[in-house]
């Protein structure tokens, strides 16, 4: 498949670099020429309405969809050519509730420790470490089906963190969670980032979250980046005292008939929300 060489890179190289990122499902263009660079160590938010192309962009960056060579680099590694090395650097949390409810919390995390080749001698300790980080050490031996929605999200976060990724990619990490659980998830992400300098790439619908937690934001609409900057830059760029939600509306308008994976997107979101109760 791909080479496994980890290339050392200068500090200035971005964590994620997209150049002319494009993807079409049949005739529907979901991502239509996106250029962006996520700096190492920042929390970068990808915002946009349903069907804007956020999830497709994430799927291209995570090697789930085939990208063309030169389109995406993760820490200088070409996603099309060095898939295995890219995956080793990434922790990924999909939008859906993806923990296995029939396994215990510990077993869920252990699986990912194995899949990332955490050596057996370190595995137990490392699994315990990340479970403590997300505040689930006490519930580790319980099956995930007994967890609340917020606990499951934190368990999934532990799964994504067990390999100590340099880049954490989160697709709607707090969808369907109550405000307290949302804070719980974000607090853990912030803690790990402070401790390790990990880069975070996140998509979200929640403007308040993006405002509060993201260092920089890219506003996507119809497969393109419409605006890019820090939350305060974006707000003051519109008018003094504007909220991020107003910026969002200004760029995306109120069009209802979006092309692309609208239906799938909505269905997935609803399913996630209903499973969280």
């Amino acid at each position: 498949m791909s080479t496994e060489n980890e290339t050392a890179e200068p500090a200035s190289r971005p964590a994620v670099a997209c150049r002319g990122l494009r993807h079409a499902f049949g005739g529907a263009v979901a991502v239509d020429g996106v250029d962006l660079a996520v700096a190492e160590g920042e929390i970068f938010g990808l915002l946009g309405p349903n069907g804007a192309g956020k999830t497709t962009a994430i799927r291209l960056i995570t090697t789930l969809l085939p990208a063309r060579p030169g389109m995406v680099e993760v820490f200088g590694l070409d996603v099309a050519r060095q898939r295995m090395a890219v995956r080793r650097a990434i922790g990924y949390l999909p939008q859906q509730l993806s923990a296995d409810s029939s396994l215990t919390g510990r077993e869920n995390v252990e699986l990912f420790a194995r899949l990332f080749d955490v050596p057996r001698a370190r595995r137990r300790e490392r699994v315990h470490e990340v479970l403590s980080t997300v505040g689930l050490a006490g519930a580790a031996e319980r099956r995930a089906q007994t967890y609340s929605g917020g606990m499951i999200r934190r368990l999934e976060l532990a799964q994504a963190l067990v390999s100590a990724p340099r880049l954490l990619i989160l697709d709607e990490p707090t969808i369907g969670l109550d405000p307290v659980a949302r804070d719980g998830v974000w607090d853990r992400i912030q803690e790990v980032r402070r401790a390790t300098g990990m880069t975070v790439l996140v998509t979200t619908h929640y403007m308040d979250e993006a405002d509060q937690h993201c260092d920089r934001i890219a506003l996507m609409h119809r497969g393109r980046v419409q605006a890019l900057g820090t939350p305060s830059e974006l707000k003051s760029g519109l008018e003094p005292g504007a909220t991020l939600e107003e910026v969002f509306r200004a760029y995306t308008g109120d069009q209802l008939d979006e092309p692309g994976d609208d239906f799938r997107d909505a269905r997935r979101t609803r399913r996630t929300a209903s499973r969280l109760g």
Partner: protein
Amino acid sequence: MHAAPAAPQAGSADLPLPPRPPWRLLPARVVAMCIVELQKMRHDRTELYTRAIQPALWLLIFGETFSRIRAIPTGRVPYLDYLAPGILAQSALFIAIFYGIQIIWERDAGVLAKLLVTPTPRAALITGKAFAAGVRALTQAVAIMVLSALLGVALTVNPLRWLGVVVIVMLGTAFFSCLSMTIAGLAISRDRLMGIGQAITMPLFFGSNALYPIAVMPGWLRVISHVNPLSYEVDALRALLIGTPGNLPLDVAVLVVAAAAGIAAASALLGRLVR
């Protein structure tokens, strides 16, 4: 470009981890998937019990009845002895043929996407799942063998032959679960996979030597039986368990080739599921 200082490593000093060579990657992934399968079975044993009902009925009712009416010429081998390896292969087939449902469920739940963003080549993931299905089939096999022994089937006591049984059940289940995952990659939806699975299970079962020798079949069914990997699985199990004359090297070769082809096909179609 050379040896720039490593970037700050998230979490712990010796992580992230160095890559592994492919020959260590594949067994590591297979072990990981099999362990998860065992953990799931340990937590929920109901499936083990409910799945044991059908083969038990085949042995107790069908087996005992046909032993009595002596309708099926099996030479000097009692019919129940002849039947037991067939039922073992059948129950493994039933487990495997619906295994693709799990992968569709995992697709819907986002689990598959998450697995595919780990350093696991698609073929390694499919191989892992194929052998995990084999592990599940083996737990079933234990129940069927115990029941067979209780019914007086003269099973082998040679541990090497039992090891052979494990290998054959693993290979057979690997092939049929890959067939199921291949259909999953084509059918995409759970309902369609269920339908196709239902449609092909019985032809695979009846079009094999599981219940009766190939010699008594009409010509057209013989042809089907000869291209049906289940026949080779049954032939090997029968030879190993009750010592009927079989062609073990051929059986093993067919099953290995079938399993490899199944893994290749299912891996090639896996991308369709995450798209």
